[in-house]
């Protein structure tokens, strides 16, 4: 991959999207790594009958992590995350394929920084986790 250059970067540039389709095993590993015992992530009868969800709920911060991965995959060795923010606005469930992506919003060549808008989108096209990032480019 060719290194990103701030001088060549323009608002509107799209980051390559990444897809994720977590299964029960990945979600189990994720919540075990956190020590998160919330039943909506592994107890299907509880999630559907007690809470009324259509399935096991994918953990919110996992989707925030995917936004960070999408930005870093695009940056490669050419830059670093300065700030990342996201908001979990909608739920996603095991079995769904989710897409993380983003767009360059502003470029400050003097400071070597760019701001990005980010999203995790479900198959219906709804943005369930919008986000933003500020990155610093080395070159």
């Amino acid at each position, binding site marked *: 991959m060719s290194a990103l250059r701030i001088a060549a970067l323009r608002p509107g540039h799209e980051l390559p999207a990444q897809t994720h389709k977590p299964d029960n095993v990945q979600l189990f590993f994720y919540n075990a790594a956190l020590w998160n015992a919330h039943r909506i992530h592994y107890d299907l009868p509880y999630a559907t009958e007690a809470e009324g969800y259509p399935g096991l709920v994918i953990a919110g911060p*996992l989707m925030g992590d995917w936004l*960070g991965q999408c930005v870093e995959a695009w940056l490669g060795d050419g830059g670093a995350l300065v700030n990342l*923010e996201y908001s979990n606005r909608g739920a996603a469930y095991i079995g769904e394929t989710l897409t993380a992506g983003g767009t360059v919003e502003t470029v400050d060549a003097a400071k070597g920084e760019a701001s990005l808008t980010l999203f995790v989108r479900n198959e219906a096209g709804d943005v369930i986790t919008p986000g933003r990032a500020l990155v610093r480019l080395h070159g």
Partner: protein
Amino acid sequence: MGVLTPELKANIGKAAPPRIEVVTRRDIRKYAIATNQRQRKYLDGDEAPPLYHVALFWDVVELDELTPDGVSIDALLPKFPLEKAMAGGLNITYHDRIRPGDVLVGERTLTDIYEKEGRSGPLIFYEVVLEVRRQDGSPVITEKTTRILR
């Protein structure tokens, strides 16, 4: 006519006792696999992915401290008059990277409680800031969590 009493607002500024955690390659690897990382440096545990601190500073609670739905009660928070959680979000500023062997200090502070009128009634917002530093005090991560209750 708000839902937030002066007693509730008085909790702003409250801090939890600092927590010290040791970063291990094993824990980074587990986190990297669980989050479907694609970069070798993360899967091998040479460096921690950007949201690894979320796992590192998640509260380790004992079984009898969990509510029936499996959630741990955050002792930093007062009992709010609204309890249904809506959107939550994080804002993370990076000062330094995290690597195996790092010893990190995490300090959580309840920095704000406020309310807004939503379409279907009042909403309570609260903010918790987590400062992650090295033992010499140098900053690693500043994270602000915002949660909305209705």
